[in-house]
């Protein structure tokens, strides 16, 4: 701090030269920046590339020394053998399970969270603050305390070893409510007021005025929920025990214990588990990244 005040007084005379220098430096600086960041980025993404490369190798090629970045020959053997029906590790079934679970879970999250967020953003009622504070407080509660009792609840409901167990309990998204509420608060209220003067009730306003305006936020929340459910690991590992009901992450764990060093098969399984989320990310990354960054700014 004291350093700063000192420089302030001494540098007033040199400001002009400093500025001219800064402009020149900015030009070359941005090239260096792009090169450095680009190099790091290539290194950064290379493990994912190597995963895809290995999935296209033969069994022998996958464990050859030195490891090669080009499959020789390019082979779909690994995919053929993990996707074949009737194995103890039904990857295709896991893929379907993951799809169904993540899609239904994301749908539930979007519906329940946006419905709940609307009155918290726009209505005055007794108990509103209490409800909101409780919901937000659970964002800070480590999820671990819920795992054991939720196992009992799910078991009591007869959902153990069934996809329902990973669709419904995790749909109680406090983050979703918080996220949608922040979005609704930021919407201009005039349209809703106009609709009210026209005699529309709250639900009609919500469905016909608010939700259409909230499409980007809904898409973001749906994507984040889908990704979260698709990638969830601990819960499915413990509540889904038969191979045919598992999701891909839990299945990968089974695949790994069944084929400890069949890296061609493991990488093919990892690719199958990655393709949908990578595709979503490539096409909709703006929604995902903005969703994540907004969670920080407003958190």
């Amino acid at each position, binding site marked *: 701090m004291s350093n700063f*005040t000192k420089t302030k007084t001494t540098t007033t005379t040199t400001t002009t030269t400093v500025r001219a220098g800064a402009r020149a430096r900015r030009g070359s600086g941005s090239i260096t*920046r792009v090169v450095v960041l680009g190099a790091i980025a290539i290194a950064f993404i290379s493990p994912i590339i190597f995963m895809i490369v290995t999935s296209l190798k033969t069994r022998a090629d996958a464990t050859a020394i030195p490891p090669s970045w080009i499959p020789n020959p390019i082979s779909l053997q690994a995919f053929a053998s993990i996707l074949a029906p009737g194995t103890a590790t039904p990857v295709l079934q896991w893929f379907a399970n993951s799809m169904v679970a993540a899609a239904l879970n994301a749908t539930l999250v979007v519906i329940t969270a946006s419905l709940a967020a609307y009155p918290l953003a726009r209505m005055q009622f007794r108990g509103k603050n209490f409800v909101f504070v409780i919901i937000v407080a659970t964002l800070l*509660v480590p999820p*671990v305390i819920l795992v054991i009792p939720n196992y009992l609840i799910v078991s009591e409901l007869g959902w153990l070893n069934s996809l329902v167990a990973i669709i419904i309990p995790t*749909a109680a998204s406090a983050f979703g409510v918080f996220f949608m509420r922040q979005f609704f608060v930021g919407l201009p209220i005039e349209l809703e*007021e106009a609709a009210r003067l026209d005699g529309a009730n709250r639900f009609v306003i919500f469905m016909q005025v608010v939700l259409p305006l909230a499409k980007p936020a809904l898409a973001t929340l749906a994507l984040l929920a889908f990704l979260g459910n698709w990638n969830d690991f601990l819960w499915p590992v413990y509540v889904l025990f038969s191979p045919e009901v598992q999701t891909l992450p839990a299945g*990968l764990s089974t695949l790994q214990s069944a084929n400890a060093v069949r890296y061609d098969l493991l990488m093919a399984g990892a690719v199958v588990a990655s393709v949908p989320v990578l595709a979503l990310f490539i096409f909709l990354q703006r929604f995902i*990244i903005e969703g994540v960054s907004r969670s920080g*700014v407003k958190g």
Partner: protein
Amino acid sequence: MSTKVGERALPTGRARRPSASEPESQNKRGMRAGTRQQGIATPWLFLAPYLLLFGSFVILPAVLGVWISLHSWDYTLPNKPFVGLDNYVALFSPGSTVSGPFWGSMRATGIFTVLSVPLLLIVPLAVALLMSKKFPGRDFLRAIYFAPYVLGVAVISVLWRYLLDNNIGLVNHYLGLLGLPDDTAWTTTTPAAWVALVGVTVWWTLGFNAVIYLAGLQDIPIELYEAARVDGAGPWLQFLHVTIPGLRPILSFITIITLLASANMFGQSYLMTQGGPGRETRTAIYQIADTGLRNFQMGSAAAMSYVLTIFLMAISAFVFYIFREKQPKKLEREVRS
């Protein structure tokens, strides 16, 4: 009290219900009273689906967990006798069958957290600072740094166990080419396993934190930097006196979520090291899940989860406290003047 609320709300409710079909005059009367109000049930009807889920799978389990922890609750046995605080006492009795493995796992979680959190605070900040100015390809680079995060813990763990394989893995191969030891057993010996777990986690979640930092950096008014520059502050002083104070709320947010995420580490250890060598990298979450959901000692596991939770909440409170100092305003004023 509740009857009063009901009475007050009834007329509004009556005026609102026919509003779709009945004459305009009545409609408007309802409107005037109702710009801020609605039937008492309306907000709760909106909230109901969510609260049903929230009550059943968040509030109920949070309470039920305490109940379970007070019992000798073996999922496979019909009798679950009440044991008071015995499960907690056992955790704190050196030499009991549960305390050794539990505190060993707490130690593993502690080691992982202490090693990973500083890296996950500093490296993403550096990346975000490098990317804070616009340049061609910035959005593309940002997406690349974020990409590992969308893959999920199972994929990245299986992938890295392959890359870190001590015989045929890429990592040892390249270390060998650089003339470094090429036979490190990354997943079966410590401290190498810690380097592997922390390194992989930093690679996996760096982009997530960087994106949050980036958003925070863009919220700092440019005028503050300009003022500092006019005052002759170089990049380092600008960083210290404008960037850091401007990021303070984001810093506290990132610190807390990173701490909680690191303290909840499970998948990397489960898939990359299987908790080994021995139990050295078996984290607290791993221990709790295995005790409760593999060995079905749910009473003990629930007690462990509350002990862990109390630790985490104390640490979170401490972080909030640290970031709540009132220095930034003083600094800001100084920069402005």
